Structures are given as C-alpha cells and as structure tokens.
C-alpha cells in the first residue's frame, strides 16, 4: 500500500461520469455528469464526500498502476 498525493490518485475516489449520474438521481434531467462545470470532481467512498480531485486526507491509498477503479 502506497500513499496517493491527492484524491484523484486514491483508490477510494470515483469520478467517472456514469457512476456519478447513477449516484445522483435526477442529475441528467437538467444537467450532466459530462459537463464542464463539475470539472473532475468525484465521490470518496471512504468518507462519503463529493469533492475535487486535488483534495487530500490522511487515508489516501494510491490506485494500482492499471486495472484500478476510476
């Protein structure tokens, strides 16, 4: 286990558009997970937060080099 530098590199962080659109009911009715306004924000499964990929905490775990969740 290695430390990630930001949430964007962390195994607990998911920000793919499909996951976001399924996690936020109604999002696609008047917005989108594929719009520019949300930048690359995503969900932290560890802390239950929605946050920017450049945030960080003490629980970061770096994603595997390949095959990790995005």
């Amino acid at each position, binding site marked *: 286990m290695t430390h990630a530098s930001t*949430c964007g590199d962390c195994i607990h962080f998911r920000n793919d558009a499909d996951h976001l659109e399924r996690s*936020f009911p109604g*999002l*696609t009715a008047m917005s*989108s997970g594929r719009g520019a306004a949300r930048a690359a924000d995503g969900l932290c499964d560890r802390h*239950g937060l929605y946050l920017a990929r450049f945030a960080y905490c003490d629980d970061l775990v770096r994603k595997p080099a390949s095959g990790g969740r995005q």
Partner: protein
Amino acid sequence: MSEASGVADAPSLSDRSGWQELWRTEDWWAVWLGLSLTAIAYLLFINGSSLAWLAVVPPKWVSFAQLGAQLAADAPRYIAQYAVWLVLFTIATAILGFKVRAFIPAFTLLYAVSVAIVAAGAWEKSQYYNLEPPLVALVLGLIVSNIFGLPRWLDAGFRVEFYVKTGIVLLGATLPFTLIVWAGPVAILQASIVSIATFLVIFFVAVKLGLDKRLAATLGAGGAVCGVSAAIAIAGAVRAKKEYPPIAITLVIGWAIVMIFFLPLVSGALHLPAGVGGAWIGTSEFADAAGFAAAQSYGGQVGPATGISGTPDQAVWSYTLIKVVGRDVWIGIWALVLSIISVTRWETITKGGRVNYGQVWWRFPKFVVGFLLASLLITLVVRNASFGDYNTVVKPGLVAPITSLRVWAFTFCFLSIGLTTRLKDLAPAGGKPFWAFTAGVVVNVIIGFVLSVYVFGDYWANLAH
C-alpha cells in the same frame, strides 16, 4: 459497462483538465457541432446555396390533410435532417461513452416525437390552445416517463444538457455580437444582484434552520447560479457530503418545472413585452434547459391575440443574455470563492489546503465560447449588408436555417427533460432544505420581477430594436 443505462465505458475524468477535455465533455462537443453547422451554413451561403433545404420545419397548417401533404412532400428533407443529426450526435455520444446501439433507437424515438411536437406547434390554433412546443414536449415527456415508463437504456439518447448546449451555440449564430456587447453589462449587473441576493438568502436561512454550511452553499448555488450544474460544482468545491447534491437536484428540478409554467403564465397575464418576460425568466429560472423552455414558450405567445408585444427572438435573446452571460459564466468564480471559505473556515475531514485557482477555467461552461464565436462569425459576415439585403438575402439564406436547427436542438432538449425526470427516483429533500430553498425562490422571483420590469424594463422591452 452498464447496460441498464446504455452507457459503455464512460471516459475517466481523472485527468480531464488537459487537452482531453476537448473531446470528453459535452460542452466542447456542443461547440464543435454548433460551430460546424454554422460554418457549413456560411460556406453554402457564400457559394449561392443554403442550408435551408436541410433545416426543414413544418410550416403553418390548418387541417390534418394539409399537414399530411406537407410532411409527405418534405419527407426526403426530414429523413436527411434526421440522418445528419443522428450521425453527428452518435459520433459525439460514442466518444462521450454511450453505446451506439442504445443511442440510435433512443434518438430515433426522440426525433420522431419531436417532429410531431413541432408540427403541433405549427397548427394555426396552437397559440389559442397554448400548445407551445416547449410545454408540450415537457408535459408529454413527464407523462411518458412517470406514468408509462421507458427502458432506462434509452436515456443514452435523452441528453438534455448536450442538446441545450448545442442549441445555445446555434443561438449565438443568430444573436448579433454587437447586441451581446451592448446588453451584456446590464445583463451581468441584473443577474449579479439577483444571484448574490438569492444565494445569501438560501444560505443564511439554511444555516439558521441548523443545516450544514456545505449543504447551505450547495442549495444556494443551485438557486442562484445555474441550477443543478452549479449545485454539483459547488458541492465539489466545498467538499460536501455525498447526500447533499441529490437534495439540491430534487429542489432545483421541482422549482424549475414549476417556473417553466409560472413565469410565462404571469408574464402573459401582465402582458409583459417579450424582452421583459425573457429577462425575468433569465433572472428567476434555475436551469438553462428549463429556462429556454419557458423563454421560447413565452416568445411563442407574442402577437395581437395575446397582447404580448415584441418578437419571439427578444424573449429568447434577453433570457440568454441574463442566464448565460449574466449567470452561467461565473460558476468558476463562485466555486473558487466558496472553496476558499470551505478550506479556511469550515472544518473538514479532508485537507487540500491549497486552493486551486485553475478551477475558474475548468468549471467555465465552455459552450459559451462557441456561443460567442458563432455570434462573432455571423456578425462579421453580415456587417456590410444593408438592412434590405439582410432581410431579403441574409436572413432567409443564412440566419433562418440556423434558427430552424436551433429549434430542433431545443425540442430534443425539452422532450428529454420530461423523459428523464422520474419523480419517484428523486431523493427526498426534507423540510428544512425545502424551506431554505423556497425562501430563495421567493426573493429571486420578486427581485427578478422588479429589476426586469421596473428598473431595466425599457431596456429589455426595446432590445435589438
């Protein structure tokens, strides 16, 4: 891959801040499609041809027999238009991560129903019965999705934001750049007053009711800036709990749908000029797509029968200036300011003490770039045309076809709003968030009305005269 949602391998957004953003966001795809169509229209025009053949819309009709004859005669044009839309949107959505085999049947259904809706709006008595295409599309979509239901994989073709952004870029090609420069500062001033007041009311009422400041900020942005998109942008900026965005989404959708009907209804009852009604809608509606439905609907009511003066374009233009230029473009600034407050003032599990100033651009609604470029391009093209030449040559040969394509893009959007708004899926908002948001709605509507009608009323009533 999620078969249920018609989504293939959605592109990762983990590194979207680089060049990849140019083909991995709906904003940029709307820019590419809108500008391409505008450029093609221009090239055909300067070579003595026109995009008018492809940009067909049902003309006014008085009987079903007449309508049927018109549709039959123009069938090759509709088929060609459908094919062009299908190819363009399929390429874009495939790259955005949707399965082609889900998108094609979904869009085919969307186009077929859109033809029926636009045709209904061309009925000579449609204004009398208030059969405005945006409202018909919305209501029909809501009935189908909430009473009958459609398979969720069809949502791949019901991309509200993509269609409305494409329509906005096309709208730019019909809006003089000089008008943006002339009216933009007033639009920004009016929108800023209302946005700041609305945000502060929602935020402080929410905090007073005991809600978390992050939820208060998420709700405030949803009501003050650009609806759902602003709510999730601010939720990310302030590191909200994952339960907060769905609460804001529910409230924004609920009030936005109410306002689609309320604002044009009250504006019409007060006989507000088209430009004034559009300005009020731009100030007091919550989401771009919902606002365009309301503004286009109100513009469609212009005429001696309703006593509403002005032109349909004025309603859409004043709405666009306030909503897009006055409110949407500032989302990055809102996110930056609130992220600074969040990081420095509000306790959090996460750290990330370094505030990232790049988000001002990352979150910028890029379709606005296309909107401005399209406006600039067409304005430069027609700058030497006389008023007579503009009306007899440029308008029918260049501007009108682009306007028709915009009508189609917006109709796809309005119908998609209804088809994707499944009320039973929405998260329960709870009493306190509801009352906080509603307090902002009341303030927003009142201040928006006063500014649009009394303070800047003459300005908006005479827009582009």
